[in-house]
């Protein structure tokens, strides 16, 4: 466990040092995968199904806010739908507008969820999203997850009806609209999925907020089971043709992903739980304090031992007793440390990143310089 905790601290350190590069690269990769998947699923506009365009738009997304990935994804899907048929594009626009006006305006920060949910649905592992969002989000995330599922089924219906719509003439405009609207409204699988995911998000959120030991683990397992049960019951009631094996494997993957997130976000040591009780004029307080598990990253110490020769007197004269030269040995010690603390585990302090009195914080390095300071040592200090 200590090794894992050390690895976590190292990952955190690498992330915090290179955040400026990691976030744009992650955004670029996500946008690239999303646009490529949209092109792969729909791809009716051949001009848009071009790697150069995908790369340029992905690069744009890398420095634009995260919400732009969602916006450009909507634009991509709308253009593909328009290339297929104007009526399909109108229905698509209506669905997006209704979702934006009624639901998405309450949780605009979850734009990433609306992008990730259909993406994971296409990769057959959508069960991760509700469990993870229940752990790191709020119950409002249920709305975003639901919107994401609807987007997936909209794209699915369009892709499924594309061949039929392609053979229809322009005079059958209402038939095209009817086909897409029926495909969405009569889709029981979508309804079951939206309900299952929404309930899972809320259940996971409620359990992980409870003041019981291992609440996060209980929440993720309970969420995965509830999700699975609702999907199976929905399958029995509405014959939604959900793959049971896929759902079980997906739920296991969801728990595994949630465990990784728990390790980074909520790694606590329940064996050292402290319960205290006190009172003031107005209230009695029953406080349960669970310490976080942290570990100090190994400290590297570099010692530089410089032996200098310096003339004792001007004009080459020697001072008595020094043998003609005075030799001064000075030591520059450089500590490279991230977390301070003794022992394997320590309580994480709120302000651990701030240096203590008497230390000079220098980009994560602290310098200790001995009293016997010479000119060369000062240069060393400046170089550092």
């Amino acid at each position: 466990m200590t090794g894992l905790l050390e690895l976590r601290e190292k990952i955190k350190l690498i992330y915090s040092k290179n955040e400026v590069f990691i976030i744009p690269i992650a955004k670029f990769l996500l946008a690239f995968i999303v646009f490529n998947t949209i092109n792969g699923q729909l791809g009716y506009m051949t001009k848009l199904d071009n790697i150069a365009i995908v790369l340029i738009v992905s690069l744009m997304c890398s420095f634009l806010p995260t919400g732009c990935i969602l916006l450009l994804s909507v634009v991509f899907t709308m253009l593909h739908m328009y290339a297929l048929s104007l009526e399909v594009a109108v229905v698509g626009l209506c669905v997006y507008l209704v979702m934006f006006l009624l639901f998405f305006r309450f949780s605009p920060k979850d734009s990433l969820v609306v992008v990730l949910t259909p993406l994971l649905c296409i990769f057959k592992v959508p069960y991760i999203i509700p469990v993870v969002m229940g752990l790191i989000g709020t119950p409002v995330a249920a709305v975003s997850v639901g919107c994401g599922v609807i987007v997936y089924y909209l794209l699915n219906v369009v892709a499924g009806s594309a061949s039929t719509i392609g053979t229809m003439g322009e005079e059958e405009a209402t038939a095209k609209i009817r086909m897409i609207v029926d495909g969405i409204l009569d889709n029981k699988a979508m309804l079951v999925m939206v309900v299952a995911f929404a309930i899972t998000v809320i259940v996971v959120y409620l359990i992980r907020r409870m003041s019981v030991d291992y609440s996060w683990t209980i929440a993720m397992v309970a969420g995965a089971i509830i999700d699975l049960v609702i999907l199976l019951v929905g399958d029995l009631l509405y014959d939604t043709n959900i793959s049971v094996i896929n759902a079980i494997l997906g739920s296991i993957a969801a728990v595994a992903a949630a465990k990784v997130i728990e390790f980074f976000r909520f790694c606590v040591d329940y064996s050292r739980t402290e319960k205290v009780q006190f009172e003031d004029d107005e209230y009695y307080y029953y406080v349960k304090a669970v310490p976080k598990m942290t570990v100090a990253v190994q400290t590297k110490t570099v010692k530089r031992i410089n032996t200098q020769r310096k003339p004792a007197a001007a004009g080459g004269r020697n001072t008595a007793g020094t043998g003609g030269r005075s030799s001064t040995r000075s030591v520059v010690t450089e500590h490279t440390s991230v977390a301070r603390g003794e022992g394997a585990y320590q309580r994480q302090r709120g302000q651990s990143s701030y240096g203590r009195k008497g230390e000079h914080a220098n980009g994560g390095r602290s310098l200790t310089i001995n009293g016997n300071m010479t000119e060369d040592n000062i240069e060393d200090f400046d170089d550092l």
Partner: protein
Amino acid sequence: MLNEERIILMTQMASYEENEGKKNVEIGNYFRSDYIAIQVLKSALSATIAFGIVFALFIFYDFENFMQDIYKMDLLDFARSVLIYYGVTVVIYSSLAYVICSYRYAKAKRSLKCYYHNLKKLNAMYNERQ
């Protein structure tokens, strides 16, 4: 001489202002009634547009039959039923918006209370120095 405690407090407050505090400060500028009224009005407008979109889609869905029946049907009765649906949609959605906005306002105020407390503490630190 740098005051470590003050720097820590100022960093915390700056971080709050940059992130979650941004929205809370914006909400905190309104009186409760004003904030909720604006949000409910926005919601009613959103619900109206969304209802319009869905209604248009409903008409186009069965456009041929609708055009055939338009001279036979009681238009007044049709308009009344549409208005009832519209009213129900707007009322339910606005009520939902009212509940959500009330909760958000209370949450933002609680959060800002802590922020203002820190501001006072910072002010006291400066006064102490003088």
